């Protein structure tokens, strides 16, 4: 996701006139209007790299936990992810979904 955001921003600077109705950078539109879930996920060997990726994609606003149920290798919310900062964990496991569904 971070890479896609950067690529879209880069191309938009050169090709803005092809889609002049965009009033924000594509990455800003993604953060505002797109939500992603955590399955499937490719995790780097080093836990801190996953946190860096979360930061790059503004996971505090774009990412929601998903269990992958009913697959046998589903993600248990007790087991998934390395230790996350409390704020970020609350966003990913609850608040982002609450906001999206208006709960």
């Amino acid at each position, binding site marked *: 996701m971070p890479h896609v955001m950067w690529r879209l921003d880069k191309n*938009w*600077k*050169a090709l*803005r*006139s092809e889609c*002049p109705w965009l009033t924000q*950078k594509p990455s800003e539109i993604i953060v505002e209007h797109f939500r992603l879930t955590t399955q499937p996920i490719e995790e780097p060997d080093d836990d801190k790299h996953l946190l860096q990726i979360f930061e790059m994609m503004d996971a505090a606003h774009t990412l929601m936990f998903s269990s992958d149920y009913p697959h046998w290798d589903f993600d248990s919310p007790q087991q998934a992810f390395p230790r996350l900062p409390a704020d970020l964990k609350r966003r990913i496991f609850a608040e982002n979904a609450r906001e999206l569904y208006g709960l």
Partner: protein
Amino acid sequence: MVSNAATKRHVVARVGDIPPGERLITDIAGRSIGVFNVDGRFYALRNSCPHQGGPLCLGRTVGLVMATRPGEISYTREGEILRCPWHGWEFDLATGRSVFDPNRTRVKSYPVEVEELQAETYAVEIERDRVVVILT
């Protein structure tokens, strides 16, 4: 080119040397600067794109494409937008500001005046209407 270091005023051309729609790229005090004539209005921009330093002033001049919603496209200000030949970034000739991020991405622009020259001490003829770029 006639220059006056004290006032930073640099005579770069006679008006007739840069017809409407044309440009002159010239060195002023070691800087490459493009001087553009858009329907009789003159603009000067640094010939270096803030993106990667490409020769911005060699780019095409186009109009401004805008849209209030998808499919409703307006095309105005023909000839007033300059696109860098390297990656197509758009700049407003009048201000040097980019179209996509006018507040943060800009190229240096210089005021241009057209002055009527009355006489020169050693001139054999009076040449009027010089294009003067003011380094700021």
